[in-house]
């Protein structure tokens, strides 16, 4: 594989979502991640690719798993990592997101990894700083690295993405993971079905390229993979949220349901799992589950993303000089 060519194909300083990316750009991230995956198996798990660079994890929402994954990824690339657990502020109280971003830029950091409860926050930040911004989840909008690691894992397991049938089950309406997966998977040629109670399907989702079913057995029947979303029952401000046990009964993934599915169906979950709500413990720990492999692959994918955006920015600066 020609390493130089790969780098030249990536020109974005930011990764904000998969909707913006071409098929080729997504494939480039995946192949770059493949080459980084091996690093984590070495005795000394480090390469100097981002030595001297500073990555700031700016997290406005509590998230251990994504934050830690980005931190490990950055450290395995030899970057310096700063973690900021920030408070969201409205217009009149506290520092604005743009001001915070500009302060981080003034510290001469190179990449901001941002997690925020407001959709579009990463895009707004990226418009207002010249350093790289990687979206680690913005509101209900996108969570591109999660979808990329899901796709990476799927490709590793099944050898391809094109032609696969993938079902996404759970709260589609409020899920950034669902949106990023729909964009990414459909661009790579997979067929995506979303499955949820009626009130958790957002309007016009078919126009994003997904098919809808309200029947979990139908969602599983022909699927090569099922991506099970975390149900966030703390969203009680949203009307008409289903009751937990009722949800498990109607949409939970169980061994009985999997018996009617393809034998090798791949079961994914972005974590953290609510055992006994989205899926039974037997399924979570069972043979079809790739949930822990997703975590491992998350490191490689995030290494690839950090590496590519940093390269793109260096490239741009060299061109200016």
């Amino acid at each position: 594989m020609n390493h130089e060519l790969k780098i030249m194909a990536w020109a974005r300083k930011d990764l904000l979502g998969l909707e913006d990316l071409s098929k080729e750009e997504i494939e480039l991230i995946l192949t770059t991640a493949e080459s980084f995956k091996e690093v984590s198996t070495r005795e000394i798990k480090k390469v100097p690719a981002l030595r001297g660079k500073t990555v700031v994890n700016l997290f406005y929402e509590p998230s251990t798993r994504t934050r830690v994954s980005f931190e490990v990824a950055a450290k395995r690339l030899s970057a310096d990592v700063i973690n900021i657990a920030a408070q969201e502020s409205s217009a009149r109280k506290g520092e604005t997101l743009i001001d915070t971003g500009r302060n981080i830029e003034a510290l001469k950091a190179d990449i901001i990894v941002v997690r925020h409860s407001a959709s579009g926050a990463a895009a707004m930040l990226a418009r207002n700083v010249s350093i790289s911004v990687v979206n680690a989840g913005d509101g209900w909008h996108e969570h591109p690295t999660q979808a990329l690691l899901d796709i990476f894992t799927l490709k590793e397991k099944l050898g391809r993405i094109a032609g696969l049938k993938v079902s996404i089950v759970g709260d589609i309406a409020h899920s950034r993971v669902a949106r990023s997966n729909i964009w990414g998977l459909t661009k790579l040629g997979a067929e995506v079905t979303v499955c949820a109670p009626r009130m958790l399907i957002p309007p016009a989702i078919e126009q994003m390229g997904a098919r809808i079913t309200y029947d979990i057995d139908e969602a599983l029947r022909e699927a090569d993979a099922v991506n099970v979303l975390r149900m966030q029952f703390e969203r009680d401000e949203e009307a008409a949220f289903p009751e937990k046990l009722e949800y498990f009964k109607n949409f939970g993934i169980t061994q009985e349901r999997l018996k009617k599915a393809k034998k090798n169906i791949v079961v994914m979950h972005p974590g953290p799992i609510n055992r006994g709500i989205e899926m039974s413990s037997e399924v979570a720990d069972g043979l079809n589950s790739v949930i822990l492999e997703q975590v491992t692959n998350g490191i490689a994918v995030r290494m690839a993303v950090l590496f590519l955006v940093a390269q793109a920015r260096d490239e741009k600066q060299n061109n200016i000089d």
Partner: protein
Amino acid sequence: MKNKIILIKNGRVIDPANNIDEALDVLVEDGRVSKVAKNISSENKEIIDAQDKIVMPGLVDMHVHLREPGREDKETIASGTKAALKGGVTSVLAMPNTLPAIDCAENVSLLKSIIKNSADATVFIAGSITRERLGRELTDITKLKKEGVIAISDDGASVDSDDVMLEALKIAKEQNILVICHSEDKALSANGVVNLGLTSTRLGLRGISQESEYKRVARDIELAKKADAPLHIAHVSCKESVELIAQAKKMGIKVTGETAPHYFALSQEAVLGYDTNMKVNPPLRSKDDVTAIRQGLKNGVIDAIASDHAPHTGNEKDIEFEWAEFGAIGLETELAVAITELVESGLLDWSALTKKMALNPAKILGINKGTLSIGADADLIVVAAEKEWLVEKNSFISKSKNSAFLGRRLRGVVEYTICGGKIVYRT
């Protein structure tokens, strides 16, 4: 007083009130239009050469938020009316959602004193329908009218109670005052920030349905019919609302409608980058809706174009999309957007445009404006219709810069604005 006698020579004069669209001279004396004819003698007069220019009545913008009193950081009567004159607007209707709201005689007289001291254009006053615009207790509409209020509206909010709204319409009819409706059922638009549908789904934002608008339009029309009172629907943004107004007009109900430039020039796709200047209420709608609005303008269902000029400071807009304020400024761009989108495309001719932006709003409000009839107030503008310009932040006179048209190239530059017989703006 200087500029007492002004002669505007050789312009293409557009005055639909008198069926005029031809090259003529316009003479302005003592604050009034005194003659419109060919070859008026130019002795002892200040001459404006309007060769190849459009000469039309000053615009009457019936939907403007001047923010004073209370939010002088966004706009003042002084800055807002200066912005108006630059945009060719000589009369505005100031919406009552100020701090305090214009909901009692005392607040009207406070506003009148500010206007007297600082307005450069003519400011007409809208009072609120209910106290503090809360939708509960009616204001003293009779008293408001006596103080000089010419229309009532709870703009920014709709009166939810059918009984309160019906009562308001009945009193308004008696008092010969116009009711203007912000038609939105907030129970249906619940915390939404963009048009409901593919756009809200793609952006991961809460949606505002067309239904939340047109269901309330239908109710408001129904109540107007019951009260047999005139009703004006503000900022019409969707197809169904246009259809409802068309039906009502056919049935002889006294309903009129207005739309804003962003509803005929922009569709929901403009929001996809989370640009908060595109966050308006009602939201930018689908392309089908935009087509319906344009057709409504062409076939007369929509009577007027108004800016819904809604200034907000940078710190209220340069934040996360869902927390940013709704609204965009429009006084300085509305004419150019209308020329670019409606006249250049052949949808409206100059007379029709002048009706939508000057004559019709004046008629709806019952004010003596929007014409170049002999003896009329000399409010008129000279427009270089083909001149192109770039909308930039620093081009605005308004205190706020939240335009939905930043970065756009538009056609049509106001070269002179004459208000009350005086040249009050020139490029």
